[in-house]
């Protein structure tokens, strides 16, 4: 059995106790270099998961006002928004923007060019998922597919998972139980489709294969090749995010190809599973308790002397 709190872990499902014949770990590879920002993933996700339209503010469905943040009126992931397409407008020197040799030099100098980055964000389905680690009811589980799932009939809405997530993904839906609220919600990777051999709704709807679904190992290979291709064709800024099993969450089940620093997309540059230090904290606590106990014992023993 590998390290179940931190560091690389080849088989999170096996680690969680599934039998050796469990299905392979699956995930998303979101290649933002081909995202056209159509938001089909957002709509398909809401349709399949029967999520409420929660509006640009996520809690006032009837307040339809423009955020005026490029074409992003979703803002962030939330309890009723499992996919979020970010739109980032950048102005940069034109020379840096010439990604394809058009045969003629384009004017450089002071000239600037606009770049519009689009990227569909989602729950990362971490190898080491802090939300799962802190859940006191067992509502959050590791599935046989290696994904992280909230069982909404078990979740009691305590909300511990919310600050635990290093990406700020999971959230609590307002409203009563009867209204479908109260609990914590996030991307299920369409768990109810996986068992039937279907892809998640977002990957199915994506017209440009920006969202790719499959066994995680295959996706990682494919992503590495895609980065190489982009580097060869003059896109040196292409890089992967969340693919590395050595990172702070043991690698993401949903990872990305980005064209700029993660912070530009609103992603933490160096996410760490917030329960990483739990073992040492427990060890320290235990040591402290022992020390106290020893001191107390020593005091009594010393007192008799």
């Amino acid at each position, binding site marked *: 059995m590998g390290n179940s709190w931190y560091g690389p872990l080849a088989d999170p499902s096996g680690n969680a106790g599934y039998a050796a014949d469990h299905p392979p770990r699956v995930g998303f590879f979101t290649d933002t270099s081909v995202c*056209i920002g159509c938001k089909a993933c957002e709509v398909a996700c809401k349709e399949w998961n029967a999520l409420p*339209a*929660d509006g640009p503010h996520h809690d006032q469905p009837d307040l*339809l*006002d423009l955020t005026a943040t*490029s074409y992003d009126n979703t803002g962030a992931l939330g309890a009723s928004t499992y996919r979020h397409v970010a739109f980032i407008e950048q102005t940069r020197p034109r020379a840096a923007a010439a990604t394809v040799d*058009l045969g*003629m030099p384009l*004017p450089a100098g002071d000239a600037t060019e606009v770049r*519009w980055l689009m990227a569909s964000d989602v729950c990362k389905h971490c190898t080491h998922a802090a939300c799962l680690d802190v859940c006191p009811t067992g509502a959050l589980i590791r599935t046989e597919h290696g994904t992280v799932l909230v069982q909404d009939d078990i979740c009691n809405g305590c909300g511990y998972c919310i600050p635990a997530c290093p990406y700020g993904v999971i959230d609590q839906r307002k409203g009563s139980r009867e209204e479908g609220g109260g609990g914590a919600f996030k991307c299920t990777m369409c768990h109810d489709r996986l068992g039937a051999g279907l892809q998640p709704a977002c990957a199915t709807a994506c017209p440009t294969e920006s969202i790719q679904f499959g066994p995680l190992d295959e996706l990682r290979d494919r992503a590495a090749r895609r980065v190489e291709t982009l580097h060869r064709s003059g896109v040196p800024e292409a890089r992967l995010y969340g693919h590395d099993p050595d990172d702070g969450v043991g690698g993401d089940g949903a990872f990305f190809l980005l064209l700029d620093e993660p912070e530009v997309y609103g992603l933490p540059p160096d996410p760490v599973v917030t329960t990483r230090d739990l073992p040492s904290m427990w060890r320290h606590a235990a040591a402290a308790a022992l020390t106290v106990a020893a001191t107390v014992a020593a005091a009594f023993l010393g007192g008799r002397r």
Partner: protein
Amino acid sequence: MAEAHPVGFQWVMEAKRRGATVIHVDPRFTRTSAVADLHVPIRAGTDIAFLGGLIRHVLDTGAYFEEYVRAYTNAPMILRDDFCDTEDLDGLFSGFDPETGTYDVRSWEYKDDDVGAAVGPRDDRSKVPEHERGQIAGSGGAPTSTNPPRDDTLQHPRCVFQVLKRHFARYTPEMVHEVCGIDPDVFAAVAEALTRNSGRERTSAFCYAVGWTHHTVGVQYIRAASILQMLLGNIGRPGGGILALRGHASIQGSTDIPTLFDMLPGYIPMPHAHREQNLETYIAANTGDKGFWGNMDAYFVSLLKAWFGDAATPDNDFCFDHLPRLDGDHSSFETVMAQARGEVPGYFVIGENPAIGTANARQQRRGLARLEWLVVRDLNLVETATFWKDGPEIATGEMRTGDIGTEVFFLPAAAHSEKDGTFTNTQRLLQWHHKAVEPPGDCRSDLWFYYELGRRIKARLAASTDPRDRPLLDLTWDYPLDESGEPSADAVLREISGTDADGKAVSGYTALKNDGSTACGCWIYSGVYADEVNQSMRRRPGREQDLVAAEWGWAWPMNRRVLYNRASADPDGNPWSERKKLIWWDGSAWTGGDVPDFPADTAPTYRPPPDARAAEAIGGDEPFIMQADGRAWLHAPAGLLDGPMPTHYEPQESPVPNALYPAVRANPARQEFKRPDNPYHPPPGSAGAAVFPFVFTTFRVTEHHTAGGMSRWTPYLNELMPEMFLEVSPELAALRGLRNGQWCHVVTARSAIEGKALVTERAKPLRLGGTTVHQIGVPWHWGFDGLSTGDAANELLSVTLDPNVHIMETKAATCDIRPGRRPHGPDLVAFLADYRRRAGLED
């Protein structure tokens, strides 16, 4: 394309993945620009100057595909001595009549062209009535001589090639910069990429959408792209072509089986009152003498048999007199203006929302308000059905609900997922869609509605002996119904495809007869039900097929995937290159991946005898089989009404004069409507022009569909694009005091609309010589009903039309923009009157 056709755009992304260079030319920086290799911002309404610049570049640098141009285009044809170009007449072609604003087109023809003798008793085309302008030729290509004099060395000073060179000589990169605001080095990069990727080994494609067609020179935009593609040898070859991305699903289908007033199915012209008195004179006036249009009589008689069945006999001209006759222009805008005059009692509006979705929306509502009755069928209770209570004129007090006598019938409609049928797309591909769910409540398909309407009217007229009821009573109206009373769409498609004397499905239009033994609802769709199989249902995956994928759906005509594909081989019948081969002559027949768009056994060496007609009259090296001379037209000797070659004219409203032809500002043959409800802004240079100093262009976003009838009632889409907005540059925002996310309003002489300012670096002012032009992006998805409401862009627009096809100019006009909300209620009326007064426009 990524913005408005995201599903189709997946193939552009696939091409890009395989190494294609994607260039996006658009006044706005859109989602397409974001993933293109190069975005070329252009001043709205100046594309002919840009394309003309590319044409000049190709001609000047010798980058054209010389063998292709010589053999397959009309470059060698010699023009009449009295033809004068815009170079000779300061921006006009010969034949212009300033009184009527129309051209006498005869001088544009080939030398020694005697069209009358060549094609039979056609009408005198110098007096083409307005209402049959672009459509005069039907499917057949415009009539002209089949064998005019030519100079294959392309040196004769009056040959098309030399005329074309002179015509485009002044479209220099500097002029492109001056007119379009495109940097010469950006222009050079485009020219280089395009020419390098065209020729024997490579082909380039053009994709366009309504951004090109919605202009007073819309047809000439497409002509300019066609000329460029012909010169580069990019027509009829794999990977080439000009792809028209249509504005809605199956708009191609509703052109093929038309909702147009002057067309019958398959681009057969509508008969005219008093001119085509019987079947014989109608056929004689409309049949081509060369190519497949030569059998138009078979297609037409088969159509009459499909409609009138056993009642159609040789003795009664197959019920030819049952067809209505054209007596004038009944196009959309003419009809609405007639409504406003109180001349139109009733109106069916099906899946359209003109109360906000058509240019000069106020004029549309004024028309609706003068009807006796109005039928609206839509998915949602759209503005066209509620204008009488929710319309802007009610708010301003210009109309009162109590004064509007229009009786409105709203009938809920089924969506495409709630009914069977086909979509016909850009590539002429018919794809079947199966009903996925039952329509909710009383919603019904259009097919059910029209079937029931016809059935009930026929029942009411059953005892009538009035001859005017005969056409309805004779209509065949016998489709099988399912358990819910829904007629079978499959049976309708089979009727469209056609049946023979035994009632069996025909193989295609070559099996149709002119003797009444066959029936066919639309000849170009004939064969879609060949072998009694609904071919449009075929779904064999592309990975199981070759590159052509002929077994996915069905493309008209005859499942050909690339039109004019004879041009993919050289005159001797060999592919131009191994890499770009499609069909070729194997010594005894045309063969290859696609269905040949050519008589299958006509050898490349075949030369038709002088008396040959129809398919036999096509020479073995003449790929453009629908054209009278078998060639692609660089210069159009017939068929167009505003010039044989594209010429840059400014839009009806623009902030600058015509730099290319100062004497002729806008298209001289455009259709204007100078009416109080359709005021035009003063031209640049006149006193009031500065009142409307900016350019606006209308556009779509991915999240909404057209005027919002489908999308503004859908919560999941509204939350993604919740509110009307106006896209402006930081420079314009600074100039006018606009703040991102705050209200602002755009004003024209027609109306004022408000929205939130979206200030973005994506919008850039264009510098043309000494002038800076600011362009405002105005999405047209909003209206006054629905879950997300907002002002409609069409309030701003005037109606000015392209003369060939009566399309309105929505993509370029002038305006003012100001911070804050627009005046509401009666204040708006006074506000607009003040604007018009300041602009010097009579009120």
